[in-house]
């Protein structure tokens, strides 16, 4: 089986997997990084979002063979101690309910703020509406992104 060298959360790791194995399952089942969640498996819901070279990508439909030389950020790598501005804003705005989709929400928001440090509501909706939340935390996510954009 081929071995792929991939940078995950700043560390180079070797993944021995079939070429088509989605990154999601490599993270969860091979590397034990269970912060990235499975929900739809078809790139529809955004729950499994990770950042690849800073861009939000659905890890459930991204084969490991496409990632050599790329840098991946998962929720575990966002900050060592829950101090990323978005994590702090998420706590301040009391966003989480069940919490299952929130890693994907937070990473999608991180990519948005990287590109657009002061997004409007419409820009937030546009960037975030592909990440589904059945608990209905959208209003608080919007507020939390504004809060993080304003420096907490």
């Amino acid at each position, binding site marked *: 089986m081929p071995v792929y060298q991939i940078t995950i959360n700043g560390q180079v790791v070797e993944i021995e997997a079939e070429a088509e194995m989605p990154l999601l399952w490599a993270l969860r089942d091979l590397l034990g*990084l269970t912060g990235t969640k499975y929900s739809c498996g*078809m790139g529809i819901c955004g729950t499994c979002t990770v950042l690849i070279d800073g861009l939000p990508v659905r890890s459930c439909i991204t084969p490991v063979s496409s990632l050599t030389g790329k840098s991946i950020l998962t929720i575990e790598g966002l900050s060592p101690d829950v101090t990323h501005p978005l994590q702090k804003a998420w*706590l301040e705005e009391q966003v989480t309910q*069940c919490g299952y*989709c*929130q890693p994907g929400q937070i990473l999608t928001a991180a990519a948005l703020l990287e590109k657009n440090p002061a997004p409007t509501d419409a820009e937030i909706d546009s960037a975030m509406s592909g*990440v589904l939340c059945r608990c*209905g935390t959208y209003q608080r996510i919007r507020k939390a992104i504004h809060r993080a954009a304003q420096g907490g």
Partner: protein
Amino acid sequence: MSSPKLNRRDFLKLVSVTGGGLVLALYLDACDKLPPELPLLSAKDPASEPGAVTPNIYVKVDKNGLLTVTAFRSEMGQGIRTALAMLVAEELDIAWENVRIEQTPADSRFGNQHTGGSQSVTKYYTALRNAGAAARQMLIQAAARRWKVKAEECRTEPGFVIHPQGMEKLAYGDLVEEAAKLNPPLTVKTKDKDFKILGTELGHWDAPQIVSGKAIFGLDVRVPGMLFAVIARCPVFDGRFSSVDDSASKAIPGVKQVIKLDDRVAVLAENSWAAIRGRDALKITWDEGSKANLDSQQITSEAAGRLVKASEPANLLEAVYEMPYEAHATMEPMNCTVHFHDDVCEVWSPTQTPQSVQKAVAQVSGLSQDKVIVYTTLIGGGFGRRLQVDYAVEAAQVAKAANVPVQVLWTRADDMQHDFYHPLSVQYAYTSLDKPALPIINIEHGQGIPIGDWRSVGEFPAAYSKECFTDELAYRLGRDPLDLRRELYRDNPRALGVINLAAEKSGWGSALPARQGRGMAYHATFGVTHVCQVAEVAVDARGNVGVKRVVCAVDCGRVVNPGNIKAQMEGGIVFGLTAALKAEATLKNGRIQQSNFHDYPILRMDEMPLVEVYILESDEKATGIGEMGVPPIAPAVANAVFAATGIRVRRIPIRPADLKV
């Protein structure tokens, strides 16, 4: 607040001082007369069985001054772990950052752990406050003895007992050893003012773990040596396989075992992806059984045919409403992890009913219940789906047959097509125009597929037809729907309270542009929590309904965590909007036609209305909030759509085709 006199049987009993902590077992039944179970849930309640023992709860204060509250209900985002701990922490008088929460496994000593019906806070409100107050009194007594002063003259500040002269203080952690040797108090006095924790907006205790990706949901459980399993189930309910060719499946790298159960086939592999591919590669001939012709259109017509219509009184206003099957579509699909070893069975399950899981796994594995240990993980959405035990039963069967620890993963399609659905129903509502009143409603449910509890259960159709009909009645009588509701609920001050508040905050009656409208709905879910919602919608020329704003007034009695009440109302509204405007589960040839979020679309962020939640101050008993935001939103939106367009749509989800110009 009163000082309840506890009798001998019910006193706060010191059970253990292990680990240097003060541990209280609180026998709950004297502290809080429990209301009877709601009929919808009682049949499945483990504690409704004869022989159920007295419930109790453990509160621990340790040498480090930390409070550990044992959570005995399931956390699925409704905030119950946080709420239970807040009740204890308030009375103990301790800083929130010094509170820890541990989830207990299924255990009959904790009473009924069935987390459904939005009842946990109502049932345990007084008991948990008494538990905290008792621990505080024992710590005070220990300090008073050391200082040789009267306990009544001491007070506390968070984490400390303060000397009567105020010059000295002792940390709780320094007092637990002495306190643990004391007899627990026979009476406790809880606070009646100066609340520091209750009534404050606290985020969920689990939130830091969630936002850092460390929270453990069911699918995150890892047991050494475990395999991942995905199961092929007959696409038609109650069908079974007749033949299985697993050669292609076994050829997939990572696939380890194929296990045939009675009606389904499991593929076990080294990782989830191999298990999914292995399952998909099975060649199965299904014996589809007797339900292969089920069709939801036909099920709807049959239900409509069974509806009993009224022949009197004279001068009837009548209407028939309809709603389809709905899936739960929890973001975390069903799953369960099971490990048989050393004559026991360990189960890690995102379940709302760990004791039912325990019982079901014991039955299917031939073990006694005390040999089945069920750990409740955090739950990635429950909404009633996880009050079932099917996911645990099959996982236990697979793990037992495989003789290795197994995590059974349901794919999204598995989850959507093998749900216990919110029932399809048709509802006939009527009243006499001569003597207008709230309607009488006859309801008929679709038959043929598994149905189950779905956030707010029968209250959802009940509120839908009642509140849509009330709106129709108002227009028919030439009355404002708000005024009519004020009249219909004139003897119900709590109903009037939320109706008037929602009307005021929404600007009810003020003008809106063309093709925009407001609609109101009021409902007291399970008869306990009063909610009125006013939805403001805009309908475009193609018939798309945009919900711009929802004003929600809620009276749930005494408030534990206002932030969480607001969050649950927001969440209930979003959940209901998906059913009102977007998603339905349909059947053709016995199969659920939807398989994922593309054809079962749930509300997205760009469709999220501005939601404003207003909480009425109340001294009434604290009542539930988890489900109560759901029922009013569908009728509020339907009524708003009528106000905007003049079109009365009597079926949800409301679709653009219903409203095209």
